[in-house]
């Protein structure tokens, strides 16, 4: 058992670290802006013809030029063909300095790897390089109003008409739809087959006539998600990914394609650090909140949880490096990370104590209201991408091998 890397890998890390320190904090080029803020600006801008996202595209392009995106992808399509260990080192170092968010994250992390694995040669050539350089931004069309946890019951239909699919229906909880160029989506292509066997995986240009985007306002007041409506939208047959009616397995494999979760651990640890500082500054009469035994124990428990996640990540990663299946680690890590994040923000509100009710921008508000936002985000996170309930079903079935209830 060891946690060390080869000399070569350590050299890679050192080089990256140097690059990051040279390129982050001023020089990065607009990267400091959040994806949400970018989207807002894109929506409200008058000068949308001049690409209001130019600033946001600069950072992924800088990264790409330096060879720090698309690490796992073949060189033929603009990737790096990097080793697994290098991928991990890269994710880890970026998380450590909290690089600015990437406007093309969905492309890089979901549809890109899916195309690498399942795309046709033409699809790879056409889409992958443009994903890497943020020329095309992508959004995901999986969930529907009646198909949330039970994704396989989706209804959005695509009928074949000559060389085209004709798509009708609705998607929901689509992130960043208003600024996306393309959508990848699951559609029902055989209504008579068992529900998981009649689904296909399509790519559609968001500018195709018949697509309407309606942003949804979320509970925290922002509008990260949209509904997307399809009214006789014609999609060329060449934009089918994989086999006709074989979409479910492809979507499944992209959902399973989880990382070791180690970069998420760094983010959680940083949050705990902020929480500790907050508790160290807050008065409780003649002492600070951090001196209270119950607060100390709660924060210690979070430290323990985060170390648990980190070392679970090491185990998952070791399996992946050794070419073994990731084991129970990936589903366990995802569920536990989401629970930990939830509990952490709850603890934050408890530590805020009498100041917890105060709204953003009010005097006396703690840390400019970040903990309220973090609390809502964490709750939302435990729903997005499979609720914690669904994750428990998965663990019960796949890891514990308990019998599956009859309903499905």
């Amino acid at each position, binding site marked *: 058992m060891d946690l060390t890397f080869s000399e070569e890998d350590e050299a890679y890390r050192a080089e990256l670290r140097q690059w990051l320190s040279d390129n982050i904090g001023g020089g990065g080029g607009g990267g400091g802006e959040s994806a949400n803020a970018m989207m807002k600006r894109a929506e409200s801008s008058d000068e949308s013809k001049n690409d209001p996202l130019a600033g946001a595209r600069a950072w992924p392009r800088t990264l790409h030029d330096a060879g720090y995106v698309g690490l796992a992808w073949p060189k033929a399509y603009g990737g790096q063909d990097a080793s697994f260990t290098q991928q991990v080192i890269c994710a880890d170092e970026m998380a450590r300095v909290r690089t600015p968010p990437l406007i093309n994250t969905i492309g890089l992390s979901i549809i890109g790897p899916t195309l690498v694995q399942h795309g046709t040669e033409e699809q790879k050539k056409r889409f992958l390089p443009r994903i890497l350089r943020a020329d095309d931004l992508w959004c995901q069309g999986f*969930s529907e109003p*009646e198909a*949330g*946890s*039970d994704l396989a*019951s989706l209804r959005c239909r695509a009928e074949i008409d000559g060389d085209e699919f004709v798509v009708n229906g609705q998607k*929901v*909880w689509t992130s960043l739809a208003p600024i996306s160029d393309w959508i990848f989506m699951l559609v029902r292509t055989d209504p008579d087959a068992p529900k998981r066997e009649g689904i296909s995986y399509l790519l559609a240009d968001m500018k195709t006539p018949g697509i309407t985007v309606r942003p*949804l*306002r*979320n*509970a*925290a*007041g922002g509008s990260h*998600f949209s509904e997307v409506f399809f009214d006789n939208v014609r999609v060329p047959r060449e934009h089918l990914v994989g086999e006709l009616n074989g979409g479910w397995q492809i979507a499944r494999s992209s959902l399973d394609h989880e990382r070791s979760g180690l970069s998420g651990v760094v983010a959680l640890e940083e949050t705990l650090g902020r929480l500790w500082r907050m508790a160290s500054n*807050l*008065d*409780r*009469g003649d002492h600070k*909140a951090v001196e209270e035994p*119950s607060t100390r124990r709660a924060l210690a428990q979070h430290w323990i949880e985060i170390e648990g996640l980190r070392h679970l990540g090491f185990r998952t990663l070791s399996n992946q490096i050794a070419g073994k299946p990731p084991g129970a680690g990936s589903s366990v890590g995802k569920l536990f990370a989401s629970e930990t994040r939830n509990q952490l923000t709850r603890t934050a*509100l*408890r530590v*805020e*104590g*009498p*100041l*917890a*009710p*105060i*709204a953003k*921008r*009010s*005097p*006396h508000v703690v840390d400019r209201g970040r903990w*309220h936002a973090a609390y*809502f985000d964490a*709750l*939302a996170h*435990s*729903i*997005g991408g499979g*609720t*914690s*309930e669904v994750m*428990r079903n998965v663990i019960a079935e796949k890891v514990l091998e308990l019998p599956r209830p009859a*309903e*499905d």
Partner: protein
Amino acid sequence: MDFNLSEEQETLQEMACDFIRERWPADCAREALDKRPAVIGADVWQEILEMGWLGVAAGEDVGGIGGDVLTAAVLSQEAGRGLLPGPFQSSLIAALAVDRSGNDAIRSELVPQLIDGSLRATVAIEEPGGRYGPDAIAAKVRADADGWRLTGSKLLVPDADSAALLIVGAQTPDGLGWVRVRADAQGVEIRKMERMDAQSCSEVVFENAPVEGDALLGDERSLREAYDIWTVLLAADLLGSAEASLELTRRYAIERVQFGRPIGTFQAVSHRLANHLVDVEIGRSLLYGACLALDEKRDNAAPLVSAAKAWLSDAAVAAAESALQIHGGVGFTWEYDVHLHMRRSRCNAAILGDADYHRDRVADYMDESWVPPVKA
């Protein structure tokens, strides 16, 4: 022995529930998040005054209905269920504080005006510094040549921006107690704050502000009693909110179909809701117990108030969190009401003592006065 709402109370509760649903639908609370702060509109407020809600627990001799604390709590519960904002609760507690101040002259002068709305008052206890409750009051009254002067700071004072009179807990030459200060007096600065649920509250800073009448409005006993009554009203508000979250989720669990059946048939949902039902029923029982103990001035009134507040703070927040989780995606949309209850219950859970503060109060009581039954 009849430990339930009286028929009159049940009728009042139904009326209040209907009135709020009609005159302050959830959309009002939602819109207020954009147009802060949330305040009851003038016409609805007038109707509330005419229904006499501010006087339900005040003496009949001063224009009230002579009801008990439980009757006031029933209204607060409906305010919580219906997301009704200020200045309802601050006005109610202000009227109750003066009614029970023990100061007959001021009581008969002010309570009628407080009940009919001609005098808008609010109550200020909590201060900066991170400690809850009357024991943390540092605001100080000094007697000088011109009379009594108040210096200090109060946080999260509800509806202070629209009040004419401030009823303030302070250390005075005659001990801890209530004093009155006019909101427009010299040396009073009102700095607007807002709550996560958009209800209005303020920081009020007093610097040598003149105290009306240069004397106590009420002594320490009456201050502590009013603090307990206010706390129990918040507990009632939390109960209403918890019930609303549970009911929204219950209905959703019946209607929403996933995997071919209503999600309410999954134990991950149904058992969770059953646990919340237990929480709500235990909370309601504690609330009734605390109200009765306050009315009968029983020895264990204070710990029972703390029990109700601690329990319902936890229960309401947990019910709102489950509501969000079980609703899934739609629960996080602006249009669904679940986040409104989340916001309200999160705020009320942390006001006038959070669950830990009140558990500590119970522990202190156990230390000092609790006599467990002893085996024969």
